[in-house]
Structure formats: structure tokens, C-alpha cells
């Protein structure tokens, strides 16, 4: 199963290789070594680093504040932190552009993509914080460390793997984002690839640019384990945790989070509502419902298939760690950075040559989703699966449970919240997905995203508004579910506190 996932994921890279080979090395070199390429390279790299850095700062801060401190309103802050997931970045880009004339370029793209990807870090880090042992922080304080040093020397090492995994998603998202940078007119590789593909029949330019993009991803992937540090298995015993009282810093922290919520949520929402006053009156409800039904079917199918493959790969990589499984993990990550548009093109190519029956069917779209979003599922599933201690496997075996049974009865129930979170993350991503859906959907099948794109590309902001709103509402449901998972584990923690206090 994991092997199928890898083979499917490798298709786009194989396509890229085949294409480059067909064009000839000289032509590819002249294409890549132009000044234009270096400009694109600088744009993409700087944007990616800026967004990832901002996401780590904002996401980790929100997670720490909502999980570890006693600040008032932290349950509301927890909702606010995950809420931007409900708005696809190109919808946010559309909303900002429609609200503020002249909103475009680097800072515009940076802001919109940071809003869209900080929740990835927030969710990963808050889950790690809930599961990490707060007693170690108390011990550190008893050893004379101040708040900041406790965070730096005890808390941060515990959450670093999660924070880096989240920031990695953020960086990969930025590298492969197509909708937002296009709407905000900031030239990165994806936009240039799309334009190169659309403007000529010669696909060597698009393929060459895509090759550089893949190279950047490889650099990121090589750096990742070094950045992440060693994954430390946490103590499986449950301990009483106490929340940190912030004192004077409490109101300041709350104000910071609220200002960010105003920018990231209130502004685009106001814009959406304003344009919908005009847009809704002219909308065709039949169209709207068909698009909605198609979007939801794609999202559910994508979520389920990614969960199944995600579990297989995570268990293999975490439990049976070897050179082969690590390579497998890396391969799947690598393909994630291949922009949706390139994956889509390659699938057109592969299906045309090898399985023409698949061409322009929904199955092909689902395969594209699997390739694109399996890493999201794995990122969410690996940490919880790694946290079901190996001793439990051994006890289960001594009680006569086979490996498959142990997986079903022990690992999956314990890692259940993480797995659900992973599936929800994929469904959300599918709802937001634009380029692959645009290229691969069955003829005549329109989703919310493709309708929105069609209207925006002819600058009819009003006609696009109902689709944008609906997209937010529909993506909002899984976002809420995902958020509830994290909050529920917080409530459980509170119950345990009470029980321990009684004894």
C-alpha cells in the first residue's frame, strides 16, 4: 500500500524527467539560466522563508498562549487561531484585493500566505504541548530557570519537531501556491509556470522552471531533519499540569492575538460580506448547489483515501524505521512540493499515454489530491502514532494480538484524534485546491473553487462573491471539527487535573 502511494507520488517527477529529456539538455539549460529565472528564484525563496518564519512565530505563540497559560478567553483564542484555515488563501487574496485597491506585490502575498499557513504551525504545536509533560517545566523552574529560559531550554525542545513540521507545511504551501500569488500579481515560479504553459505550445519552459522548484524543495527536505531535532518520546504517564499565570503580560498577549485576528479574519470577512450584498442578488442558485455538491464529494473522497494511505505510511515509517522507510517518507514529501499545476499536467500526460480510460474522470482528480495532500495527512498522523509507546505493542503481542490486531485495537485508538485531524486537514485542503481541480475535473463538473476562479479571472468580483462565501462556510465545518479535536483533549486534561486534586 505504501509502495502504491510512493509510485503514484513519483509520477509527476518521472514526467518532469521524461519531458526534460525530450527537450534536450541544452535547451533546458538556456531556459533555466536566464536572468528571469534568478528573479523568480529570489522571489520564491524570500517569500517562502518570510512566510515560514512568520508562521512559526505566530503559530507557536498562539499555541503556547492557549494551551499553557491561564490567559482569559483562551478557548476563544484557540478558535480564532485555527479559523483562517476556513479561508483558502486565494479567497483571502481576492477579499483583500477587492477591499483595498492596490493591494499587491511581495508584502501582500506575504501577509495573505502567512494568514493562511500559520494555523498549520498552531495546530501542530498545540497538539504537542497538550501531550508534553508540563512537570518538566515545573522542575526547570525549581532549578532556578526564569520563564524565558524554561521556554527556550525545556518547552521549545519538546515542541520543536512539531513547530518545524508545521513550518515545513507552511513553506511547501507557499512554494506551490498558485491562486494567491496570481491574484496579487507577485511573480513566483508557479505563476510563471502557469503563464508559460498557457502562452505557448512549447512546454520546455514550464518544465524547466518546475525543475528548479523541485530542486529548492530538495534543499528544504535535506535541511528538515536537522532543523527538527531528535523526536523525543514523551512520558506516557499522565500528570497534573498547572497553567502559567502571565500577570502584566496577559493583556498584552491577548491584545496581540486579537489584532492578528482582526487582520487575518475580520478584514477579509468584511470584504466578503460587502461584496455578497451585491453578488448574492444576481446568483444562480442551481449552479451554486451543483458546485457545492461536487466540492463536498471531492473533499470527502480525498480525505478518506489520504487517511488510509497516511496510516499505512506513518505506521511503516514510525514503527518499522529503516533506510527504506525513511526514503519512502522523503519521496512522498518531495512530491508534495511539486505545484498542483505540474502534478495535474503530469497526470494528463501519464493518463494519456498509459491509461486513457482515466483521462478526464473524477478518479484522476482524486489521485491528484492523494499526491498533493498525503504529506499533510502524514505530518498530522506521525507524531501521535509515534506517541503510542512501543511497550504497549509488546504487551498486546504477549496477550496474543497479531500486528494487524495491535494496530487496530491499540495504535489507532490512541492515535485516533491525530488521524481524524489528518483526514480533516486533507479534506480542507481539497476544498481549497484550485489548479489541479481546474485542469483535471471531469468535463462539465464545476466546483466552488473553479467557479470562483472563472469569475475572478474576468474581474467580476461581485459574481465571484457567493462562491467565495460558500467556500468559506463549507471549509469552515472541517476547520471547526479539527479545532474541536484539540480543544477536547484540553478538556480531558482538565478532568484529569480535577481527579488528581481529589486524591
Amino acid at each position, binding site marked *: 500500500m505504501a509502495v502504491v502511494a510512493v509510485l503514484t507520488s513519483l509520477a509527476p517527477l518521472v514526467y518532469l524527467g521524461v519531458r526534460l529529456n525530450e527537450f534536450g539538455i541544452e535547451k533546458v539549460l538556456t531556459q533555466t539560466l536566464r536572468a528571469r529565472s534568478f528573479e523568480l528564484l529570489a522571489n520564491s525563496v524570500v517569500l517562502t522563508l518570510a512566510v515560514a518564519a512568520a508562521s512559526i512565530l505566530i503559530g507557536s505563540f498562539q499555541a503556547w498562549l492557549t494551551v499553557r497559560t491561564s490567559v482569559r478567553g483562551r478557548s476563544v483564542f484557540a478558535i480564532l487561531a485555527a479559523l483562517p484555515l476556513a479561508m483558502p488563501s486565494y479567497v483571502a487574496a481576492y477579499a483583500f484585493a477587492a477591499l483595498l485597491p492596490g493591494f499587491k506585490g511581495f508584502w501582500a502575498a506575504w501577509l495573505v500566505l502567512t494568514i493562511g499557513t500559520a494555523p498549520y504551525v498552531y495546530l501542530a504545536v498545540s497538539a504537542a504541548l497538550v501531550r508534553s509533560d508540563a512537570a518538566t517545566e515545573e522542575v526547570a523552574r525549581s532549578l532556578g530557570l526564569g520563564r524565558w529560559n524554561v521556554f527556550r531550554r525545556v518547552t521549545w525542545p519538546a515542541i520543536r519537531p512539531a513547530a518545524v513540521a508545521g513550518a515545513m507545511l507552511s513553506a511547501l504551501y507557499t512554494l506551490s501556491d498558485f491562486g494567491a500569488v496570481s491574484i496579487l500579481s507577485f511573480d513566483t515560479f508557479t505563476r510563471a509556470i502557469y503563464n508559460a504553459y498557457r502562452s505557448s505550445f512549447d512546454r520546455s519552459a514550464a518544465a524547466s522552471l518546475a525543475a528548479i522548484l523541485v530542486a529548492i524543495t530538495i534543499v528544504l527536505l535535506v535541511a528538515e531533519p536537522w532543523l527538527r531535532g531528535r523526536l523525543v518520546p514523551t512520558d506516557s504517564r499522565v500528570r497534573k499540569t498547572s497553567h502559567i499565570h502571565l500577570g502584566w503580560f496577559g493583556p498584552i498577549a491577548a491584545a496581540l492575538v486579537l489584532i492578528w485576528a482582526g487582520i487575518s479574519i475580520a478584514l477579509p470577512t468584511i470584504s466578503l460580506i460587502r461584496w455578497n450584498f451585491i453578488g448574492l442578488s444576481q446568483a444562480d442558485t442551481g449552479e451554486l448547489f451543483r458546485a457545492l455538491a461536487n466540492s463536498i464529494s471531492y473533499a470527502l473522497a480525498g480525505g478518506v483515501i489520504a487517511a488510509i494511505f497516511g496510516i499505512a505510511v506513518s505506521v511503516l515509517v514510525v514503527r518499522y524505521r529503516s533506510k527504506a522507510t525513511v526514503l519512502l517518507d522523503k519521496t512522498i514529501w518531495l512530491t508534495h512540493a511539486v505545484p498542483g499545476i505540474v502534478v495535474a499536467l503530469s497526470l494528463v500526460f501519464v493518463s494519456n499515454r498509459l491509461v486513457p480510460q482515466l483521462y478526464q474522470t473524477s478518479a484522476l482528480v482524486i489521485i491528484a489530491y492523494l499526491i498533493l495532500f498525503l504529506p499533510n495527512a502524514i505530518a498530522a498522523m506521525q507524531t501521535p502514532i509515534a506517541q503510542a509507546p512501543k511497550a504497549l505493542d509488546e504487551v498486546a503481542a*504477549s496477550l496474543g494480538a497479531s500486528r494487524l490486531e495491535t494496530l487496530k485495537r491499540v495504535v489507532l*485508538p490512541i492515535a485516533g484524534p491525530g488521524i481524524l485531524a489528518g483526514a480533516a486537514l486533507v479534506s480542507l485542503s481539497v476544498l481549497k485546491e484550485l489548479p489541479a481541480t481546474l485542469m483535471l475535473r471531469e468535463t462539465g463538473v464545476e466546483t466552488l473553487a473553479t467557479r470562483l476562479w472563472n469569475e475572478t479571472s474576468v474581474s467580476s468580483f461581485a459574481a465571484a462573491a457567493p462562491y467565495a462565501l460558500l467556500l468559506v462556510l463549507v471549509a469552515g465545518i472541517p476547520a471547526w471539527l479539527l479545532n474541536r479535536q484539540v480543544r477536547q483533549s484540553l478538556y480531558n486534561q482538565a478532568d484529569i487535573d480535577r481527579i488528581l486534586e481529589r486524591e
Partner: protein
Amino acid sequence: MTFALQLHSVSKKFGGHAVLKGLNLDVATHEFIAVLGSSGSGKTTLLRLITGFDSPDTGEVFIGGRQVAGGQKFVPAEQRRVGFVPQDAALFPHLSVADNISFGLKDLSKPERSVRVAELLKLVDLIGFDERMPHELSGGQRHRVALARALAPNPDLILLDEPFSALDAELRGRLRDDVRQVLRTTGTTAILVTHDQEEALSMADRVAVLRDGEFAQVGNPREIYQAPADIEMATFLGDSVVIDGVVTDGKITTALGSLTPLNKVVEGARGRVAIRPESFYLQPDAKGTGEVVGRQFFGHDALVEVKLPGALIRARANGPFAPEIGMRVTVWVRGSVNFYAN
């Protein structure tokens, strides 16, 4: 006679380092045996070979007369019917007490299962705890659930991996009694792996002392304690005073006088004797050769340090009657001693 467990020259290496060196052991059915060893002695490795989490490099393992490892044969852990109680209990955190206990009862119908769970809860004295979750239990309760869980499928053999090491002294003592009682009731053959001499000697029918991957001595607790195979064993098993001596006329001449050997000795041999602190008797005597230089009071008894010409000994004395520091005493050795030739 049927054996619950047999090891035939079992060896295991890790990265060129021999951890177990040709172990042989027969464990009779219903026997409670303790494998005693300090850390690094190979006891955890031995345990993993018996449970089936690892396989030996050479040698054979038989459980209930059935070969489970050795040669081409390897029966995986889930088919061995060996119960396992790990060090930290390792209860399934997502399952209630009842569900933890019934985890291995997949061949029983639902009503049969609840009957069995009720039996085990009674056995480990946790009636009414069915619906509790692991995080709602105290340390001792968790270990008793872990024991019940391991016993539930009626295993041929149960392995206890330092099950009490994380608990406080009082709880540890009580839990030892409980576990011993439970295992006596069920008649399950048990192997306790521990580094705690007191635990091994007080609980087991037989003790196998593992040292550097070899069984240095196997015997009942009394034998092991009273007749250690060598001087290292004597000091490992408990406090001992080691004193040089020479065999003359069948007796051993030492700084403490002439002592009677327990074991066979060769005339004229030089060596050492090991004497337990409780074998000394201190007689207050103004003309005695010993002087009390230190005293540790424990309530029920006391450890008294006595300086003699040519030796410093630690003697256990009855608490309230232990001599004071500065007093002069005559030191007597009760009973016979073990002599180990150099």
C-alpha cells in the same frame, strides 16, 4: 516431569558484544523463579527472548515442552501464551480497567469474558474498578491491573519485569505480598526479573543469579544467601564483612579468631571468609579487643561499626540493646562461615 520453561545453551550477541553466554535453565510448572542481576547483566535480553520480542542467536527455548525458538523455529510473541507485566505497567491508556483485562480474551463470548474479568478483579482485589480509566488509578492499582491483564488468558508462564521498581517502599512490600498470593492462587509459573536482592530472596521459590550473561548460581533463596558460590556473590547478595584467613587443623584462623568452615576446605589454604552482619554477636566487655566506632540506628535493629586489631567490621545488633559508641566489646561469630580459597 514437565517443565514450564527450558533454556538450552541460549546465547545472544548485540553488535559483537555477547550479552547472554550459553544459558541453561529448567523451570518447573507452578514454580516461582527470580532472575536476579544488576543492570547490564543481560536480564532484560533474557526476558525478551522468552517473551518472543527477540530471538536467540544460538540455543533453544521450550515453553511447556513446545519449542518456541532455536534452529529454524521461531514462534512469535502473540502465539507463545506468555503473560507479560512490564516495568511501568503499560496499561492501554484508551481502555477502561475491564477492557484492559479482557484485551487478550478474544476467544471467549461476551458473557464469559465479563465473568472472567470479574474473577480477576476479585483476585487482584479491585472489585468495582471495572469502568475506571488507567489515569484514574494509583501506581499500585495500575500494577495489579497489569497483573490481572497478563493472567486473564490463563498463560502457561508469566514474566514480571521489575514490576515494583517505580513504587515507594511501603507499596512495594504490600504489592509483593499481593502478587505472591495471587500467583499462588492461580498456580501460574512465574519468572520475576529484578535487580533487588531482597525482592528476589523474599518472593521466589528459586533464585537464578545472572552475572555477565551467565548464571553464576541457581538455588533456593536460603542456599543462595547462606552458601554463595563465590566471594563476589556473597557481597552481591547482601552486606558482608570480608576477612582474610588461613586453614589450620580444619579451622580458619582470622583476625576474629578461629572459625568453623561451612564448606570443604584444604589444609593450609589461604583465602577469605564472608560473614553476614547478623552473624556477629557483640558482648560488652571492658577488656574486649573491639571498640565501637560507629552506630546507625534503624529502630528494630542497628548497624554497629567495631574496630578490631587488623579489621573493621559492621555488625547487626538488636536495636534497643546495641552498644554505644566508645564501648569496648568482644566479637563472637555465630555459626559456621563460608571460606573461599584465593
